[in-house]
């Protein structure tokens, strides 16, 4: 976890360098979204540091075990950020492609509902706390054993 902006490609390269024996790497990058219809001036991510740290570690080790991954790295920012900046990056390395896809997807689905971060968005129309989406709760269900 860090407040500084990170470079998605540099992180991917550093991650892939540890690929000895792996055949597949999947990188998910979440970005501060801002479109013409829904412009965002800036976003602030509040977090609960101790719990966030342990939740991200739990998710990484659960995904590693469940999908037999070779390696997982999660980068999550907090604090203030601007449109098109990366917020989060999840990387999964595996001998097989489906495990790498599933591992990264699983972590993102859990992270959306179980990592203690809260988005505060400032738009030209005012500022507001982003509301949790029911669809995010459902996304988690597909991983139920």
């Amino acid at each position, binding site marked *: 976890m860090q407040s500084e902006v990170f470079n998605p490609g540099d992180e991917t390269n550093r991650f892939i360098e540890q690929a000895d024996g792996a055949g597949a790497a999947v990188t998910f990058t*979440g970005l501060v979204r801002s479109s013409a219809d829904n412009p965002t001036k800036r976003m602030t*991510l*509040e*977090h*609960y540091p*101790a*719990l*966030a740290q*342990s*939740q991200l570690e739990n998710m990484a080790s659960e995904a590693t075990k469940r999908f037999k991954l070779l390696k997982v790295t999660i980068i*999550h920012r907090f604090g203030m950020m601007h449109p098109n900046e990366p*917020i*989060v990056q999840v990387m999964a390395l595996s001998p097989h492609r489906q495990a790498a896809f599933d591992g990264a997807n699983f972590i*993102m689905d859990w*992270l*959306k*509902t*179980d*990592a*203690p*971060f*809260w*988005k*505060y968005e400032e738009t030209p129309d005012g500022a507001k*706390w*982003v*509301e*949790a989406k029911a669809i995010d709760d459902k996304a988690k269900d597909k991983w139920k054993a």
Partner: protein
Amino acid sequence: MKILYFAWLRERLNRSEDEFDVPNSVSNVDELIDWIGENDEAAKMAFENKKLIRAAVDEKIVEHDYSIAGAKTIAFFPPMTGG
């Protein structure tokens, strides 16, 4: 017992934490929410819709029926919106 508040809960209460001597009769998270609201109108309103309140006891996310016996830190927050 230390109580932490995050996001719009923190804003509505206008503070990020409290330090309380919680009586033993308050046994779980749900009862703690009611107890905090009893003498605090702002808290009572902020906690009004309990479905929107998530809780963590000593850095573990729990349901509202979870026991708070012996807990050091209890955090309250809205549904998470990270990632």
